[in-house]
């Protein structure tokens, strides 16, 4: 029996061919780990091609999980453990592995031919090149095939159970609870008892292999993380976004209408909302992104909460309709799950380079609120907030998520639905003004003096019939107007309406435990995780650093300018070439130190740590 060793954190990466079921394996290991009570963060990474040629480097798919007995904010940079199902998976991931890390590798595919395919002349398992690591080379495929021999499976199907064998082995190694996976397999393959039983057998065999053989001398234990009391589940950013939208519409008492067109990495929101007919959600898979946003806007005109979900290329197509929503001042929530661009870019890789597009990517003076979620679970709150602003201010709102948040998962403390404030649509029900002849009339562009939101009358309301559209409106009446002064007034009013939202936005909070920091790191969106983790290490190293994070990118919190001006140096890490930095410099005339990474991956926290240390130290030297 192996000894048990306690660890506080482990980063583990499962890697294999796209067809090897690595995402499923990672998901299951994550679920086991979450239910055990560890804090978790995940990073799925897969090729855009559904099935790149087998055994090749482009075909490698991986899933990384960071779990710990304390609260963590990123999936980690360097894995401690790499599970590689073939030579390509080993080669593609080896350089990320921590020196001294553990490699568990399936030897079945280590033939001369397969090695040659990826440019390896020698077998690294035999030539000593893996000396820096602790290598467990096992014939996982052979072991799995043996475990399912009693079932009447083709050779191919039998060997496919190797991922479950590996999962069983890892579950044993890290002392994970297995009931959830057994239940999951029974349900997933309920319709195919043979496959179900074979997968369960392979999983159990992997577990028993760890227990009975002496391949591993130690097994590990990572205790549950302390978390605020409550009921938790694991959730990905896309799912949290979908739930946030449903909750927003529910709290407003409005029909949720999604118009969407499939695009990676946003499609899962469409998928989830399409399943949610049990909650009355209406979804429409349109012929393209233009029709999708058009239908959503039409639904909003009809008194629903129109929503559209997409990613970069789709955003480009929606721009004209979003402009129409700005002009018609109707609620509309637009979700952009950002991916690497320009053009098709790298569809499955993350980036934050659509910020300026969200802020300015329309013709004319076309201001609208922009929000960004900072973590997978925060997608729920941000989506809910987007719904609230859209309805209250009668405006399109863009919410920025990204591929990293969308697919990554975290433990989520279930929200208390009852304590969420209702959203009041305040539909117009009667005339709100007087015509030239003194008769009561409805003025669709009459505004709430506080919010500047216009009156929203829904078709079917007698006496409030009116026409809106993309042509400039006369103030109050909403009639077509080409009057120069009116256009200026309306342009300023649209801008001012946005400014009124500031009143609803909490001040930005600065986290500076020592109170002595001279460097502020300001993040937005998914840089939250790496920044927080890097700052933690910077502080552990005895340096002072202040952190702040922006959810509201337009308008920005009232105190932001003061906060920026009160530090000697402001560093803005972004997965783009400095888009927030540009906005801040223009708005607040402050000097911003850019920190740009565009590698299709979250910013590396260890790299950021080193760079922040250097920035802080350089400031010290100056004085």
């Amino acid at each position, binding site marked *: 029996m192996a000894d048990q060793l306690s660890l506080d954190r482990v980063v583990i990466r499962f890697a294999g061919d796209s067809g090897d079921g690595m995402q499923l394996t990672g998901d299951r290991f994550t679920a086991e780990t979450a*239910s055990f009570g560890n804090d978790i963060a995940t990073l799925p990474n897969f090729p855009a091609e559904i099935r790149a040629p087998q055994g090749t480097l482009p075909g490698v798919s991986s899933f990384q999980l960071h779990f710990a007995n304390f609260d963590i904010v990123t999936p980690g940079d360097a894995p401690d453990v790499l599970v590689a199902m073939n030579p390509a998976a080993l080669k593609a991931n080896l350089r990320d592995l921590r020196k001294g890390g553990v490699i568990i590798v399936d030897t079945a595919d280590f033939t001369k031919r397969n090695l040659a395919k990826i440019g390896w002349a020698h077998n690294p398992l035999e030539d000593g090149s893996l000396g820096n690591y602790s290598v467990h080379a096992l014939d996982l495929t052979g072991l799995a095939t043996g475990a399912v021999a009693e079932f009447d499976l083709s050779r191919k199907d039998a060997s496919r159970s190797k991922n479950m064998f590996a999962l069983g082995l890892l579950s044993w190694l890290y002392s994970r609870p297995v009931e959830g996976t057994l239940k999951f397999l029974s349900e997933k393959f309920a319709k195919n008892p043979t496959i179900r039983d074979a997968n369960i057998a392979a999983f159990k065999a992997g577990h028993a292999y760890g227990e009975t053989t002496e391949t591993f001398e130690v097994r590990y234990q990572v205790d549950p993380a*302390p978390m605020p009391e409550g009921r938790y589940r694991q959730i990905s950013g896309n799912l949290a976004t979908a739930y946030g939208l449903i909750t927003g519409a529910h709290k407003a008492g409005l029909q949720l209408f999604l118009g969407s067109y499939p695009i990676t990495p946003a499609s899962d929101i469409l998928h989830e909302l399409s399943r949610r*007919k049990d909650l009355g959600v209406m979804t429409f898979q349109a012929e393209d992104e233009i*029709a999708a946003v058009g239908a959503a806007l039409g639904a909003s005109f009809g008194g629903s909460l129109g929503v559209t979900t997409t990613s970069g290329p789709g955003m480009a197509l929606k721009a004209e309709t979003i402009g129409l929503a700005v002009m018609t001042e109707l609620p509309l929530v637009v979700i952009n799950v950002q991916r690497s661009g320009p053009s098709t870019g790298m569809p499955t890789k993350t980036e934050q380079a659509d910020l300026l597009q969200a802020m300015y990517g329309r013709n004319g003076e076309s201001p609208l609120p922009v929000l960004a979620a900072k973590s997978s679970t925060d997608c729920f709150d941000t989506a809910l907030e987007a719904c609230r602003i859209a309805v209250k201010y009668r405006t399109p709102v863009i919410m920025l998520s990204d591929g990293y948040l969308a697919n990554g998962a975290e433990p989520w403390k279930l929200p208390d639905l009852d304590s969420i404030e209702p959203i009041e649509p305040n539909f117009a029900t009667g005339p709100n003004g007087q015509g030239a002849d003194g008769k009561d009339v409805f003025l669709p562009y009459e505004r709430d003096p506080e919010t500047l939101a216009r009156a929203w009358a829904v078709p079917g309301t007698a*006496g409030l019939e009116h026409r809106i559209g993309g042509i400039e409106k006369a103030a109050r009446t909403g009639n077509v107007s080409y009057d120069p002064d009116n256009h200026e007034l309306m342009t300023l009013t649209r801008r001012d309406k946005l400014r009124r939202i500031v009143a609803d936005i909490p001040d930005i909070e600065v986290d500076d435990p020592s109170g002595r920091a001279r460097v502020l790191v300001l993040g937005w969106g998914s840089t939250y995780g790496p920044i927080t983790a890097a700052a933690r290490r910077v502080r552990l190293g005895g340096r002072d650093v202040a952190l702040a994070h922006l959810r509201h990118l337009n308008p920005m919190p009232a105190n932001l300018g003061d906060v920026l001006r009160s530090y000697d140096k402001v560093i803005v890490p972004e997965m783009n070439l400095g888009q927030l930095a540009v906005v801040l410099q223009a708005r607040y005339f402050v000097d911003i130190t850019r920190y740009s990474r565009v590698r299709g991956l979250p910013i590396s926290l260890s790299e950021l740590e080193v760079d922040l240390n250097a920035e802080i130290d350089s400031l010290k030297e100056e004085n």
Partner: protein
Amino acid sequence: MTQGLAGVPLSLEPLTKKDYTSDQEVRWCPGCGDYAVLATFQSMMATLGIKRENTVIISGIGCSSRFPYYVDTYGMHSIHGRAPSIATGVAISRPDLNVWVVTGDGDALSIGGNHLMHTLRRNVNVTIMLFNNRIYGLTKGQYSPTSELGKVTKSTPYGSLDTPFNPVSLALGAEATFVARTIDSDRKHLAEVLTAAAEHRGASLVEIYQNCPIFNDDAFATLKGPDGVLISLRHGEPIVFGGGEYCVIRDAQGEIRVAPTADVDPSHIVVHDETRTDPSQAFALSRLTEPGVLRQAPIGIFRRVERPTYDDLVRDQIAAVKADDTEAALKSVIAGSATWEAHERPA
């Protein structure tokens, strides 16, 4: 087939054309065909018996797309080509509304071709009035996807080079369940066809030949004149026209064509049946439209068949699975199937 307005509340008092007239000054060029369509529409709407506030008109961009401003119902003058999409959102989410789309030949067939096609295919319960003046009016006279080949305009000084669309053929190919054509100069026909279109449950496409005296005057003059022929299609009646002199026959090769009535066996004359499930005869009739200068064109209802509408199906699907207590259901969806309890532990 008169179910198009089912679900739209009826008006308690009778309405008149005046009720459908807004206070906005109509601003088309003098003599524009749009005037006649607007006036006919306003009178026709009053005869439908539905509540005025339950009508929504969505238009794209173009001269004709100014239409909603002039009708005192709910309306949106949207963006170029996208009216069918916006109307789709209205129609799916609001079964109690009578939804119209107003569009032009450039708006519907050029920039908005994709949306038109898919709206027809889905059979969304909307009525589309396609004002075909065979030119871009609003942008001052460039050729459009329905302009005849060789058309000389500002953007085609040496003549246009692309083959025009026949909107009726296109709609039939796109699985439309109601396809008709009418003309601005025949108010009675216009009113008849628009009423039928409104009453059809599903996507109805009505192509309206509309004269643009400014940029394409008399595009339909030959058709209306002594040498032109309007082939009137009437359900259940043999297709004869030109005072009975001509007729439409199915010849020995199975082809649909025009023939002098005197020369044919009366049993070969096609009896128009707009309800045929198979659209090939309607398509063949649509091909009797001359592609170049219009000397001959059928008008009337080419096709009127029943097929479930997309918006009804969407709502049915939801009704079939929707939880009685959506709040409780939402809570249970949010909780998911695998939760765990955390207790505060000292770090």
